[in-house]
């Protein structure tokens, strides 16, 4: 019997596809690769790889410990490579709340509310970052998070650097 190998790709091993143009502009397809983007990002740089009006998906290189962040809406973190510890904590009365209309912002230091818990997430694991909480990521080795969120103050738009522009 044939055995099948499922290929998920990783920072260390990915093979990007391509757009073969017949009659169109390749830029319209905004084609990039999450592992390629994360391989050149600074730790926890929030690089938009998808945008649909106010909504974005961000490719994030998780490496070391991130700042604490919070958002005025739920966000969802999918680990696509490596292992990431996600720490969740309630905001205290003196903490900076979510300051942007959408997307997340950094807190000044750690939050002061109740500790909610932590999740150790590996490839394929999706974690809810609930509204009203702050979160911090930690990764011992370079890992990759795909974040479902909204276009916020720290979302990085560097489309011309990441997408296929010529046929």
């Amino acid at each position, binding site marked *: 019997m044939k055995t099948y190998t499922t290929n998920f790709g990783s920072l260390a091993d990915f093979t990007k*596809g391509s757009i073969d143009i017949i009659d169109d502009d390749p830029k319209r397809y905004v084609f990039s690769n999450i592992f390629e983007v994360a391989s050149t990002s600074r730790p926890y740089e929030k690089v938009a*790889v*998808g945008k649909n009006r106010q909504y974005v*998906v961000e490719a994030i290189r998780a490496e070391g410990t991130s700042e604490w962040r919070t958002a005025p809406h739920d966000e969802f973190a999918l680990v696509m490579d490596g292992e990431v510890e996600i720490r969740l904590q309630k905001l205290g009365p003196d903490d900076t709340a979510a300051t942007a209309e959408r997307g997340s912002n950094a807190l000044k230091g750690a939050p002061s509310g109740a500790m909610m818990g932590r999740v150790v997430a590996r490839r*394929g694991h999706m974690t809810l970052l609930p509204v009203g909480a702050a979160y911090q990521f930690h990764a011992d080795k370079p890992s990759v998070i795909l974040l*479902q969120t*909204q276009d916020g103050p720290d979302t990085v738009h560097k489309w011309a650097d990441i997408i296929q522009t010529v046929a």
Partner: protein
Amino acid sequence: MTIAAPVKVDSTGPNTDGYRSFRLGEFKFRRDEYFVYVEWPTGKHVMSADSFLKALQRDVAWQFFYGIVNFDGVVGTVNHYGTVDLFAGRYNDVYRKAELDHLENFSTPMIKATFDEMLDDWTNAGFDPFASPTETGSAFGIKHGDNRAAITRHRVTASRMVSVPGDEPLRNDENGHPVNRHFLDVAQDEPEKHPEPGFDGEISSFNLYAYLSRSQVTWNPSVVSVCGDSLYCPTTEEYILPIIHGNDRVEWFIQLSDELIWQVEDRDSGAALAKVTMRSGDVAAMPADIRHQGYAPKRAMLLVWENADPALPALISSGQLPSVPVEI
């Protein structure tokens, strides 16, 4: 508020092959052992019953989806979210130029009830229109039985995220979701959750890849997480997308595993525009003025990312918003 009148489906009794025929306005539908025949005042069309039922199944299950569901290059539907256009040749340059195209608008309950009965009557025992070709029996032959369990499956639509208490449950062997034969190597480990006392129900995390490895269906985007109108709709793909999807808004694809090939055409004329080969980690936008059909040599995990904002189709068709998500 108006109360909709009960819908009366216009159909005949069984023909010599055992199948009922259906009418929607001036469109007529009938099937025999191998084929489905569609007729309208200025033309007629024939499709394999297998292809037709796979397309019909998705159109019905998705409540006519976003924009255009082309069953093939000739017939299909356009969703106006309350009413639905049924068309023949409308999005085909040759039919348009020959003035042989035809389009009629129906209330969603009317066309839905007719398509539901057609799918129910024309799907034989042993044929599952959602399954990959090697995991189901044949659509063909004279009428024999039905497959109601397969054609009325629950469609997953999480309100926050799969696995959150009260939301869509996880899949496992016990609830009828064994790991698919193409995904036997996919890790089934769950994330390690360490809630502090009192926060048990508030720490939510699940293995999306394991969840997808247990999908029993192909080409069926289903909501797993929701951020406002931003919907993650992952799906597992094998063989060919049974419809050609014409966009009324921008849609994004994120390839989670393996490889897909997309044929992209102009939405209105069908002219070829591009081929997009997507491998793990690749991200691509489908502009709002194209249509696309996917090919998957091995069962693959695709994250379809939608913006469900109901204002989008009008904003784009009126030119207030561009067809592309990012201007570079």
